């Protein structure tokens, strides 16, 4: 479904990604592992068109869409959950979800279904998003992306800075999403959560993909884990 | 030398002579250079000056000109900018070699041109510029004023108001030199004529103030007997509009210099406030003399509109110029100036004398009250009182004192 080929991305003059390539097939959950600053978020932003790559291409559902405007990619079926959550602080929880509604078909995601999925959100429907706790904001951000009815969900470090109990809850929910048929590309520092959720994984370090394998292989390969993931 | 070169040399010599003679022949006109603002709102006033001037000059030229010469004039647009106007005046003197300079509605520019005229020894006739400095402290031999100024207007206003029963006054106006000059002119003279008058307070707003309502309401709550409104050309019309809108003119009598002038009342049409006291140098309907009627008719036939006060200034300029040259007997600056001093010409407002001491044309002032009238789609002045020039002009003693400073 998603094919990223040899992309090079820059922030201004800083060369951040060096020929990053990865693939995600329909229904899979693939993780992108790496330390802080390794290039995970940049890769996500490159795919999403927020920081378009200077070279290389991104192909989604067979169509080359490198560096297309993010809103067009959303309409194609990409959903984005940024690593800094970025809820619309001035709007309420309900409004955050309402304005993101898109591509709704029978059986798809609407506010009702999101609230069924995240019951805690329904309780705070009227609260300003800026006043939510970290966990609530993360649920909202995921819910907001789901409202766009994506086929591929780009999840950037969803567990960062959250309490273990919340992380556990999120893990269950992401697992449920995967079960429902959603394709997921998950960037994570939390190795155990990532490996439990994913089928395959890529390891990125200093903007270069260093390793690629199945979840089991990654689990067993201590050398790689020690060198690039600091476990 | 062969024949060919002899003939060509002869032809060249004839040609050269002809070329030299041509400008000499062209110089046989009297040239007047007018610098004024012909763009934007001031042009309503200045167009009248030029048009009346042209009308009279055409008449004179048709009758053979002055001393056997035609009078021609050129105009330059100062766009109300002093630097533009001054360089235009310099160009008129250097390049066009004008005999007389004339202009302008912008007082600062008029003073600058007056200074230039003094240096270049060219007579300058000030039209419309209202600064009293022109013939007052900055006056000199080469400048003449054929228009009113703030001292004249101030005194006229005071003379008119002194005859009224008002005691408690409020002063309001545009916060700049002209506004304060008019206000001071009126108030100082009023106090001399009526020592019993009281000043309750003053309000000053910025030039171009968009909203007079809060000022008007504040003034009304002070409950004066009358208000002296010292607005400059730009703000007269908007203030009168606000006065009508708030009903100010119906609650408190107020005096505004030029409130009764055609240029002020015409844009407001029938929406102008009634009962406003104003002073003016000219009305096309008063005095209803033969001279005035004829002047109005000629102007209307030529230009399709009623003449406003600027037309009188233009006419006077033309009459003074032609009269003085005629009297002098030759086109000579110093003799021209001597002839001008003390000269009287006829005008639609009666005979006007050019006072020799300060070169100020002694124009009468008319004080009146605005009122609707049959047959006009704008208000006119009624209850008109004529103030003779001697009543309103600053005395020679006052001029002498001002120039000694």
């Amino acid at each position: 479904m998603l094919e990223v080929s040899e992309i090079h991305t820059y922030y201004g003059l800083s060369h951040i990604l060096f020929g990053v390539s990865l693939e995600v097939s329909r229904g899979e959950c693939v993780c992108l592992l790496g330390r802080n600053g390794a290039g995970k978020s940049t890769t996500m932003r490159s795919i999403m068109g927020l920081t378009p790559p200077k070279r290389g291409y991104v192909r989604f559902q067979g169509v080359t869409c490198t560096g297309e405007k993010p809103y067009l990619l959303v309409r194609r079926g990409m959903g984005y959950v940024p690593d800094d959550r970025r809820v619309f602080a001035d709007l309420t929880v309900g409004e955050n979800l309402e304005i993101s509604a898109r591509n709704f078909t029978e059986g798809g995601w609407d506010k009702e279904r999101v609230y069924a999925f995240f019951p805690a959100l329904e309780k705070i429907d009227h609260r300003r998003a800026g006043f939510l706790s970290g966990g609530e904001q993360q649920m909202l951000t995921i819910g907001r992306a789901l409202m766009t009815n994506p086929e591929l969900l780009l999840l950037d470090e969803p567990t960062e800075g959250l309490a273990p109990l919340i992380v556990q809850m999120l893990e269950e929910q992401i697992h449920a999403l995967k079960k429902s048929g959603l394709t997921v590309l998950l960037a994570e520092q939390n190795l155990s959560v990532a490996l439990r959720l994913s089928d395959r994984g890529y390891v990125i370090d200093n903007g270069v993909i260093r390793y690629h394998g199945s979840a089991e292989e990654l689990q067993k390969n201590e050398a790689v884990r020690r060198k690039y993931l600091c476990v | 030398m062969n024949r060919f070169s002899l003939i060509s040399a002869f032809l060249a010599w004839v040609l050269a002579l002809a070329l030299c003679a041509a400008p000499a022949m062209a110089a046989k006109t009297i040239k007047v250079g007018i610098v004024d603002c012909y763009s934007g709102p001031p042009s309503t006033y200045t167009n009248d000056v030029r048009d009346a001037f042209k009308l009279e000059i055409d008449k004179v030229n048709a009758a053979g000109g002055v001393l056997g010469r035609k009078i021609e004039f050129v105009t330059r647009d100062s766009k109300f900018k002093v630097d533009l106007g001054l360089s235009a005046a310099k160009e008129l003197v250097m390049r066009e070699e004008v005999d007389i300079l004339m202009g302008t509605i912008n007082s600062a520019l008029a003073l600058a041109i007056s200074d230039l005229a003094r240096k270049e020894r060219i007579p300058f006739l000030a039209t419309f510029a209202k600064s009293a400095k022109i013939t007052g402290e900055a006056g000199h031999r080469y400048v003449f004023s054929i228009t009113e100024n703030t001292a004249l207007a101030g005194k006229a206003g005071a003379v008119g108001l002194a005859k009224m029963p008002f005691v408690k006054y409020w002063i309001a106006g545009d916060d700049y030199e002209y506004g304060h000059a008019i206000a001071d002119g009126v108030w100082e003279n009023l106090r001399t004529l009526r020592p019993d008058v009281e000043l309750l307070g003053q309000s000053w707003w910025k030039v171009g103030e968009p909203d007079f309502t809060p000022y008007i309401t504040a003034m009304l709550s002070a409950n004066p007997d009358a208000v002296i409104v010292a607005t400059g050309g730009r703000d007269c019309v908007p203030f009168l509009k606000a006065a009508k809108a708030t009903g100010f003119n119906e609650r408190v009598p107020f005096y505004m210099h030029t409130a009764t002038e055609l240029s002020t009342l015409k844009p407001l049409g029938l929406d102008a406030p009634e009962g406003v006291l104003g002073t003016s140098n000219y009305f096309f309907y008063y005095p209803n003399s033969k001279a005035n009627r004829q002047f109005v008719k000629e102007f209307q036939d030529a230009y399709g509109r009623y003449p406003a006060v600027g037309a009188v200034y233009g006419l006077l300029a033309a009459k003074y110029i032609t009269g003085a040259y005629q009297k002098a007997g030759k086109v000579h600056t110093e003799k021209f100036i001597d002839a001008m001093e003390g000269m009287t010409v006829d005008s639609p407002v009666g005979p006007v004398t050019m006072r020799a001491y300060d070169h100020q044309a002694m124009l009468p002032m008319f004080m009146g009250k605005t009122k609707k009238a049959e047959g006009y789609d704008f208000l006119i002045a009624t209850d008109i009182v004529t103030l003779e020039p001697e009543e309103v002009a600053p005395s020679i003693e006052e001029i002498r004192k001002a120039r000694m400073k």
Partner: protein
Amino acid sequence: MDFASNITAAALFQQVLVGLSRTTILFIVSSGLSLVLGVLRIPNVAHGSLYMIGAFLTYTIAAAVGPGAFGFWIALVLAPLGVALLSFAAERGLFCHLYEREHLMLLLFTFSMTLVFNDLVKLIWGSDYRSFTAPGFLQGSFDVFGLPFPRYNLFLLLIGPLVAFGLWFLTNRTKIGKIARAAAVDREMVGAVGINVSWIFAATFVIGCYLAGLGGALVAPTQNITQGMDHTIIIEAFLIVIIGGLGNIWGALLGALIFGLTDSLGILIWPQFAIVFPYVAVVIVLLFRPKGLLKSTW
């Protein structure tokens, strides 16, 4: 230095009313400026020119339709729409390509638009000033505790809250308003949920400029319609937006209140130096709250 001795309760009350009607115009214009500043991050110096064009258009439309109340109402409706149309053309043709630029560039660009609009006005209407009067039933004044209160000012007093309510409704209860508020803070994320921010920006810009035109249309009967009216209003509007908080519409209301009331009360209390009062108020506010009274979106 003389303080006026005429400060009675009636006079104060009347000046407050007059000040409030001035607040209406200031609020309408400033809120438009604040909207554009907050959502698009464009300091639109040409906002004043659009206000001026609104006034000129009102004059022309009313003159074309004919005298009387009908012309006035038609002009009041059409003139701001005309300004909105003009701003839409400017936005689509020019501004939308500049959103990513720095503020200084945008400031310079809108400033150049001011010059263009100024010349446009001169071309179409000439440099004479125009006078436009309100229809009969809005002229004159009625007494409030013995002092006159112009009818037209009462009209403005009624319109003010209407516009404020309309704006509140637009920004808080409509989808487009909510998206605009989100885009004001995080335009990137709004794109990342599939919304084409470009059209939101266009809509916000047009609405902001419509408000400028509406302000000009409403002010037309009260003053000379002339070039130069854009200069005065844009300075006041920017000051109001700054003391209110950039991008905050309620801040614009608060700022307009402060400005309008200090102006009219100053005229009553110290008429010789009344010009200074609102600016002194601005300085005082900024000394204590340099970022503005209410929260800004920047």
